[in-house]
């Protein structure tokens, strides 16, 4: 059974790695700054919204790309939305993927771009879920979540 201190250290290490590896950027820190007593679950709420929204967008993208005649405007619009949401929560690698996607919108390999976008999304989703689980463990062990600089 890990102690509070061990859990807190794990949390700091994990969070630091997420920033170092580019999964998260400063915008995620901004989100955490907005969390307070009046909104103690703000980050989880916004990120959960992002998960729901992303899954919808990825499905819409898949459908759009399956059409006989692909509507590129529609595809671009979905990717624009995805870029916006991911950027708003600080999911940097997903945002970068979207920028890449839009640059290749005219080209043939859109399906490949979609798979990569999906891949990046799943990666960040797993990482964030792990982070939230760690937070819960700390809280349940009676500790407080360390503030990241």
């Amino acid at each position, binding site marked *: 059974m890990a102690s509070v201190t061990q859990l807190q250290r794990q949390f700091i290490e994990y969070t630091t790695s997420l920033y170092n590896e580019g999964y998260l950027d400063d*915008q995620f820190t901004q989100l955490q700054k907005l969390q*307070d007593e009046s909104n103690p679950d703000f980050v989880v709420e*916004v990120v959960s919204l992002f998960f729901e929204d992303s899954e919808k967008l990825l499905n819409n993208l898949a459908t759009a790309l399956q059409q006989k005649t692909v509507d590129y405007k529609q595809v671009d619009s979905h990717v624009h939305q995805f870029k916006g*949401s991911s950027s708003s929560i600080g999911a940097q690698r997903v945002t970068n993927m979207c920028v890449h996607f839009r640059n290749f919108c005219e080209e043939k390999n859109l399906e490949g771009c979609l798979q990569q976008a999906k891949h990046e999304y799943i990666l960040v989703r797993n990482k964030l879920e792990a982070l939230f689980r760690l937070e819960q463990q700390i809280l349940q062990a009676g500790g407080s979540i360390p503030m990241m600089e």
Partner: protein
Amino acid sequence: MACNYEEDVPHVLAVDDNLIDRKLVEKLLKSSSCRVTTAENGMRALEYLGLKETHQQNNGSKVNMIITDYCMPGMTGYELLQKIKESSVLKEVPVIIMSSENIPTRVNECLEMGAHKFMLKPLKLSDVKKLRHQLTNVEVEKR
């Protein structure tokens, strides 16, 4: 409803078609001591303001500032700005345009149309707090 609380706390209308961004901007504004109403597109915003197409309705809600996304389906933030500036009742209300893209022609066209500011997304809490202070000053100057 003319209590001091209402007068001291600015009422901001935030317009954005993206759900996450709406939630974010609402929190940013609330954390900067603003009362917030959100709208998911230009049409809803105009309805809320009591501005339907060309004729002004008298039951629009009073706002001290409008902050809107640029890229929205149907009516862009620029078009919304235009409609607001064309209204005799609303043209004095400061309008902020937000965009994820820093395109100089876009910035210029918004400022020329009378936008108070053009801000890059994602917005930071420090930017919104600064805006809130400026808003108070604008109000004070008018008295």
